[in-house]
């Protein structure tokens, strides 16, 4: 490899560090992302310049096709669907890494250093896990399959068998370096990925996406070692380390351990929760009554959830809040860190709806205010206000810090039905005498509320 190429790759590696660093702060994030993208383009261009590659036209066509699909997908996706999009992109990256490793394995033989083979086997199996696991997370988030944990009686055994098979086959690949064994290893990796993600409940899926993201990073790093490419090693390792760290941060924010998220459902179904709607009595009322409640309150806190975003009701909500503010009430939005489908997702969704920045309050800043709050309006959120997180050790969300909505004087839930939230558990707060439910589509209900408040 010529020196200039190595220096260019060093520059690209530095740019990837800067990209990640940029993404950790809101002011520098966009620039950081662009720096990373620029470095990636340069890094991919370089081998076309210094190597005498075959099949250049076909490869350029393949890059064009992939880029086209990527751009169209990225442009079309709605902000509410962002988590599954990230999962999908991660999965194809893992799949690509596994395929690259299989192609490398083809050229390996008796003379290949053992560590190269270890790295190759690692890339094949973990890349396949990432691909299949991401496909299942996508299916769960897109609601192509149930988002609840899927556990069948033989699952722990099947998982253990796949895991042992994966390890055993990896050892064989290292000893034999045969392509056929590599292909079998990839298939076992696919099975392992599916079995790993099936038992994970919907609310925990984002954490698994982050973990699989870290996995893909590590496979890319291992692939870099096999190919003798420093830039792949550095970029992959950065993502692997950052992804692992992010996974732990997110798990901590939800009060869960990663082991509990992955294997909790296998240990006895405690995270299964209730999938059915309850028929216990609740207090529901019409928009006019709720409007009176809101209009004469001095302090109101709005808790937005994923249901709000799905109903595309952000703008109506913002209007309602503006009217309440004009009537002299103090109104804030309380944002739970894992509201939405992914940590930080609600911030992205409200940013899209152009809700003023200064009306958004983070959980830790606003939790003390609920005691003095007249009415809390919960729009399409459930799990992030569920007191079971504090009181019920068997609940899947137990230990997750929640918004202390239960301490307010009155709570109004805007809900479509009594169906439990994403975590699949019932919310005791719904049956509290201080709680009023307003059933209906969030956008529809908010529009009626808005009209009723204006009419007062």
């Amino acid at each position: 490899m010529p020196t200039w190429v190595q220096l260019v790759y060093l520059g690209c590696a530095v740019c990837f560090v800067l990209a990640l660093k940029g993404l950790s702060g809101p002011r520098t994030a966009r620039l950081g992302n662009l720096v990373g993208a620029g470095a990636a383009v340069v890094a991919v261009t370089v081998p076309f310049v210094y190597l005498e590659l075959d099949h250049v036209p076909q490869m350029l066509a393949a890059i064009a096709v992939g880029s086209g699909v990527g751009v169209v997908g990225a442009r079309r996706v709605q902000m509410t669907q962002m988590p599954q999009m990230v999962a999908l992109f991660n999965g194809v990256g893992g799949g690509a890494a596994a395929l690259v490793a299989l192609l490398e394995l083809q050229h390996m033989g008796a003379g290949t250093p053992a560590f190269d083979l270890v790295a190759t086997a690692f890339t094949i199996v973990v890349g396949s896990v990432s691909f299949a696991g991401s496909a299942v997370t996508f299916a769960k988030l897109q609601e192509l399959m149930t988002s609840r944990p899927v556990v069948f009686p033989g699952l722990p055994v099947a998982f253990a068998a796949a895991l042992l098979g994966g390890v055993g086959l990896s050892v064989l690949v290292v000893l034999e370096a045969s392509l056929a064994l590599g292909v079998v290893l990839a298939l076992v990796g696919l099975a392992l990925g599916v079995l790993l993600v099936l038992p994970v409940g919907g609310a925990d899926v984002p954490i698994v996406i982050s973990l699989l993201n870290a996995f893909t990073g590590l496979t890319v790093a291992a692939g870099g070692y096999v190919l003798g490419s420093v830039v792949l090693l550095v970029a992959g390792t950065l993502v692997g380390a950052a992804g692992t760290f992010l996974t732990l941060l997110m798990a901590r924010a939800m009060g869960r351990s990663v082991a509990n998220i992955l294997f909790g459902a296998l240990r006895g179904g405690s995270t299964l929760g209730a999938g059915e709607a309850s028929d216990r009595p609740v207090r529901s009322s019409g928009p006019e009554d709720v409007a009176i409640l809101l209009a004469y309150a001095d302090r109101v806190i709005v808790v937005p959830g994923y249901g709000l975003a799905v109903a595309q009701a952000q703008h109506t909500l913002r209007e309602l809040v503006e009217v309440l503010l004009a009537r002299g009430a103090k109104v804030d939005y309380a944002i739970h860190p894992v509201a939405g489908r992914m940590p930080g997702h609600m911030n992205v969704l409200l940013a899209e709806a152009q809700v003023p920045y200064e009306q958004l309050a983070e959980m830790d800043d606003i939790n003390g205010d609920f005691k003095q709050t007249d009415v809390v309006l919960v729009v399409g959120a459930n799990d992030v206000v569920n007191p079971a997180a504090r009181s019920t050790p068997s609940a899947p969300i137990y230990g997750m810090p929640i918004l202390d909505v239960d301490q307010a004087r009155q709570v109004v839930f805007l809900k479509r039905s009594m169906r439990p939230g994403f975590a699949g558990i019932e919310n005791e707060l719904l049956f509290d005498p201080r709680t009023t439910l307003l059933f209906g589509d969030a956008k529809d209900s908010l529009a009626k509320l808005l009209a009723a408040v204006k009419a007062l």
Partner: protein
Amino acid sequence: MSEGVVWLTIFVLSVFVGTEVISKVSSTLHTPLMSGANAIHGIILLGAVIVTGATDSTPALVVGLVAIVLAAINMVGGFVVTDRMLQMFGRRRGAPPPVAPPKSPSPAPRSDR
């Protein structure tokens, strides 16, 4: 220093840089950060190009081209979607509430009409 140790050194240092760089990120940015990191590992496209450019059999070429398509989706889609998310934060940041600071140290007295 043997070559293996050089690689190990780069790996270990990269682990520290990776964890250090994101250790203080707020939950507000978790989604874009995850997506941005995702895009970066799309750099496997580079590996796919190098391997595919050296294939001699047709089946291997086909596998290589599939890898290139997948990696390009990961890389290009990842960066574009991250940019889209970050644009929204920028837009909100770019439109602060209308505060009207006095233009001169002694503002003109208000005329009562």
